[in-house]
């Protein structure tokens, strides 16, 4: 577990990312701030399209520019601002100090190279191992993520792997160089529960043993509840709530977070006839926000929400929320 007073290894301040499209600007990330300490796991949840992937890809220059443009902010990796470093240094950071697991394994694995090559190459580059050693490490990594017959599959191409196996190859690549920070974007969506459990064990072990800091994006609230230390909730390109995992699930304050927690089906208990949804459409993100992004779908919205964008305010220790409504500033016990 992270020491409470350790310095964050990754600190993001006021990050803003905008896309230029033919239809105008898309403000995908609006003043996002967060940090992670060594050995800590920050869970990131939020609606599809809320800017989770774009935020993380902005950190290490993974977005094509143009159309993307990082308009402002700081990304401090051990104090070094990654938005200001040279492209060469950034390439070193990616896959070296920062491991990245992409949401869509097929777009990030190159279809014309073998799986083996795609793991071995970064190991050789970042860890200075020779070909044989790198190959051994690649086999070890694939076994670690549970690819059966790993040695024999190094010469396969990505299309010969199943969806979940491709995802596990991505995980192996991201872990290859013992990164300080691991950014995992929906890393287990294609994995069944048993293999997911196995991957979660590996992750627990790595952060305990190597003090790896982890940012884990997922829509699986069950996974977040089980592994995160803190959770950040995103909506419409902004962080709307952030709290340690226990209060987030037991005393959620933002109306979006509350709605989100009501939508989960289970394997036990009564089976609902119809699943809960959050009515309404997500915001268009055509301009920098000037009002609360959730206002049109929010049961609690009032005048001020349409006129002003709420800032994140501390409501309890380590717990902040971006909402004007008094309920968001009242603890659960006080309401009941």
């Amino acid at each position, binding site marked *: 577990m992270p020491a409470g007073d350790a310095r964050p290894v990754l600190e993001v301040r006021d990050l803003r990312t905008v896309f230029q*499209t033919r239809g105008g600007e*898309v403000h995908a990330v609006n003043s996002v701030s967060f940090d992670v300490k060594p050995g800590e796991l920050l869970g990131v*949840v939020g*609606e*599809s*399209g809320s800017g989770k*992937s*774009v935020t993380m890809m902005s950190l290490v220059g993974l977005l094509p520019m143009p159309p993307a443009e990082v308009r402002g902010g700081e990304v401090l990796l051990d104090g070094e601002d990654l938005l200001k470093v040279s492209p060469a240094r950034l390439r070193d950071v990616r896959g070296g100090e920062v491991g990245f697991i992409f*949401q*869509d*394994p*097929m777009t990030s694995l190159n279809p014309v190279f073998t799986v083996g090559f795609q793991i071995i190459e970064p190991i050789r580059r970042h860890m200075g191992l020779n070909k044989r050693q790198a190959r051994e490490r690649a086999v070890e990594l694939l076994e670690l993520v*549970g690819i*059966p*017959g790993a040695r*024999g599959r190094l010469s396969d191409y990505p299309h*010969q792997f*199943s*969806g*979940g*196996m491709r*995802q*596990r190859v991505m995980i192996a690549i991201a872990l290859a160089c013992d990164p300080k920070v691991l950014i995992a974007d*929906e890393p287990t*969506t*294609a994995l*069944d*529960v*048993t*293999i*997911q*459990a*196995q991957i*979660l*064990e590996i992750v627990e072990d790595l952060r305990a043993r190597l003090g790896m800091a982890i940012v884990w994006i997922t*829509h*699986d*609230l*069950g996974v*977040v*509840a*089980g592994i995160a230390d803190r959770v950040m909730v995103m909506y419409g390109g902004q962080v709307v709530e952030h709290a*340690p*995992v*226990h209060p987030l*699930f*037991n005393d959620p304050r933002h109306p979006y977070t509350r709605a*989100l927690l009501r*939508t*989960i*089906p289970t*394997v*036990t208990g009564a*089976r*609902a006839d*119809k*699943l*809960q*949804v959050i009515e309404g459409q997500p915001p*268009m993100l055509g301009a920098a926000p000037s009002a609360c992004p959730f206002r049109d779908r929010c049961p609690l919205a009032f005048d001020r929400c349409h006129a002003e964008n709420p800032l994140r305010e501390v409501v309890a220790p380590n717990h902040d929320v971006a909402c004007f409504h008094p309920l968001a500033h009242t603890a659960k016990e006080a309401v009941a």
Partner: protein
Amino acid sequence: MNAQRPLVEVRDLKMHFPIHSGLLRRQTGAVKAVDGVTFDIYEGETLGLVGESGCGKSTCGRAVLRLYDLTSGEVVVDGRAIGTESQGSLRRMRTTMQMVFQDPQACLNPRMTVGAIIGEPLDEHTDWPRKKKRARVEELMDQVGLNRAFLNRYPHEFSGGQRQRIGIARALALKPKFIVCDEPIAALDVSIQAQVVNLLEELQDELGLTYLFISHDLSMVRHIADRVAVMYLGKVVELAPRDALYDEPLHPYTEALLSAVPEPDPAMAGRKRERIVLKGDVPSPANPPAGCNFCTRCPKVMEVCHRIDPAFREVRPGHFAACHLNDPRYGPEHSESAEPTAPEATRTQHGGTR
């Protein structure tokens, strides 16, 4: 559900991919991705197909739609045997059967706008005027929760979950009878998952659609499926009505799957839960073990399991399983030492007709 007419009948389906190696790239083996599965899907029902990553679910779904040339076995859709039919004559049937792909990227042409992608099946199979097609595309976008204003955007301008919904809208365009949904909701957040699942259910009620719903999300499958098939290493190991499967799983693999589901119980949040991780080697589908495929990891493994592949039997009405524990000759209450073995070994192809 009530009408028990099978719309899809799958018999001893096998899909093996050759492995080539050596200098001359000779075939030296095969990945037995699907190795003899038998099941029916009734008209208007949803059959859930679950199982570990790499066990052959996607391959099975694609093979049922004949996106591959089958190694062996037969598939009957709507009374028509399509196991060996040519791709050309299958084309006309494509309007009745569709697939939502696991990897949204795979089916989205990056140079086409979203409107064109969703409307492509309409261009191909209808002679509707432009306006009608456009109206249908917009209707589909509404249904899957994509903003109509995005009609002229390109796929890369969407988030992962938004791309998945483009694929769903496209599959629905022609109002097919049978849809194979391969992890259609894995990339979506829970609210949109719910929206898509509700949509699939509404369409089913309205149009009498039949689904093969591939997923590893057991709680979602519990919600949507009428019956559930569990696959392990190329074979179906258990098949049962939903409640029977979740309440009383008969196969140890199903038990293990159910026990490993992480549940967002607020009372438990922040405390670490006990996870059951299956131990033992995960065998490769190129080289499955002797006997039962699950014997290398089964917590209840018996001596017989290493020798004899259990038959896929109807243990209770409608509840099929392939496990020696359910066989009175080998089950827990019997000592296994005195058992005859030879005849069973020849009858091991699970999946006699039902």
